[in-house]
């Protein structure tokens, strides 16, 4: 029996009610937002429920939305995949800008370990209960979080490179 998006949505709404909102399909992948306090509980349910059975964590990454309101400027995006029925879903978990943190899912999927470290490294989103919450690609001494939108890509003081005419001025993207 195949698993369609309506079934997943119904099951989630029945179980978690208003903790899961904003269901929509984006290029065939069911996407929804979850309450950041309950991300571990919800992902555990998605993994262990015998109908849903999302056995594979494809991807974890962060996104920064500086234009959103203060309590939802950072998002952690999970892509889960059910291999048996070949269904993917995308889960977004928004967290605040003051102390961005969500619970780690390393105990459910070991592959989350480095991916959560990478997310922390680039966005400063802390993952609670992670066994080794430190930077991974950048050096440990670094203080800023380079993929946040306010972090400049290049040294803005450089004068040897003037390519305004090719569209590369600060804040144009």
């Amino acid at each position: 029996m195949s698993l369609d998006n309506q079934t997943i949505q119904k099951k989630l709404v029945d179980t978690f009610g208003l903790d899961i909102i904003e269901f929509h399909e984006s290029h065939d992948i069911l996407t929804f937002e979850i309450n950041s306090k309950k991300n571990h509980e919800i992902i555990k349910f998605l993994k262990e429920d015998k109908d849903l059975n999302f056995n594979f964590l494809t991807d974890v990454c962060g996104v920064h939305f500086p234009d959103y309101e203060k309590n939802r400027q950072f998002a952690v995006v999970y892509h889960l995949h059910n291999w048996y029925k070949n269904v993917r879903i995308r889960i977004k978990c928004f967290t605040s800008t003051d102390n961005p943190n969500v619970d780690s899912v390393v105990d459910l999927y070991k592959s989350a370990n480095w991916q959560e470290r990478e997310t922390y490294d680039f966005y400063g989103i802390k993952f609670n209960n992670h066994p080794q919450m430190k930077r991974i690609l950048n050096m440990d001494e670094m203080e800023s979080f380079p993929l946040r939108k306010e972090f400049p890509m290049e040294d803005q003081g450089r004068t040897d490179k003037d390519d305004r005419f090719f569209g590369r001025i600060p804040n144009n993207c």
Partner: protein
Amino acid sequence: MSDLLLTPENRFQKQIEERLKKDGVELSVLNLGPTHPATHGIFQNILLMDGETILDGEGTVGYIHRAFEKIAENRPFYQINVLTDRLNYCSSPINNTGWWMTVEKALGIEIPKRVQYLRVIIMELARIADHIICSSVMGVDTGALTGFLYVMQYREKIYEIYEEICGARLTTNMGRIGGFEREWSETAWRKIDEFLNEFPGVWSEFENMLSRNRIFMDRTIGAGAVPAEMAMSYGFTGPNLRAAGIDYDVRVAQPYCSYEDFDFDVPVGQNGDCYDRFCVRNAEVWESMKIIRQAIAKMPEGPYHADVPEYYLPPKEDVYQNMEALIYHFKIVMGEIPVPNTEVYHAVEGGNGELGFYLITNGSRVPYRLHFRRPCFIYYQAFNEIVKGRSLSDAIITLSSMNVIAGELDC
């Protein structure tokens, strides 16, 4: 503070002192990498050793981190292709094509059948090139250099085909939004034919040399075994996963580029050890050749790119004489192409696993966010658990059999 947050050197120093006090055994710390001939790339493993046995280890990655995701947020779509080349640089055309398909999905572009078949051919050639390197390097790491040098000539032939198609060899930057930059030349087709005629003989010779070779089998069977459950939990994809016995292949699970038109098998192993990984890759090379032959035989007529003037550069002669072409040329080069507000995840079966692109656009000329799902980065984290308790020589062969490519690891 948890011990794991310390630098590995400090953490291991504590263990060495404790062990010395306990039973007088002197442990040592071995720095495998960052540049070591056996690591095939720039990444470091700091290992705590008891003689030849590895007790603990920690991988430190990031030595060639180039902030691709940050750069991508500041570049128009067609300029991001050069970044994808440098992920898994052993099979750049797969990365390139994966990126174009992501953009095409976001823009909603329909791709002609012929372009899809051409892409399949080039991607399968890239997969062969990738597997040639990995399998032959496994030979090198077990002491057989001959096979490596022998099959490397044929990787060279694949590079000549790339060169004929796009002008570049390693970092190919191949294709455009909607198709290829030019029609494939006669020479390219001739070279593909030559390759398909010569390579099977060479590859079976190579396989015969190693796959029933006593020394090779003793070194690889049982070394670095990853059971299926563990592989799944650690996010393994690609040949490494299939070696553990799970037949997940993106080409079959979610066919892209008309892979559903071709008849091929997904080889799987049993134990997920180095030998199984080697065999799965070798079998995949045969499957890839099968796919290329089918694609050539069924090759449809048609254009080599989609009819999308807003995204596909017009021929240069037209730019000088035709108003519309000039406008499109200007808009594309200046990165002024219209992009809808959307969110896409597209995955392709890369040389070593599911290569995914997660793209968020907000209508501007650059991606709002682009995340690369690099298979290496995800499965390499299992390395320490795999080698714990094994000997150093097992660790080396495990590393090369996992096909960890530094460019993809660090992104």
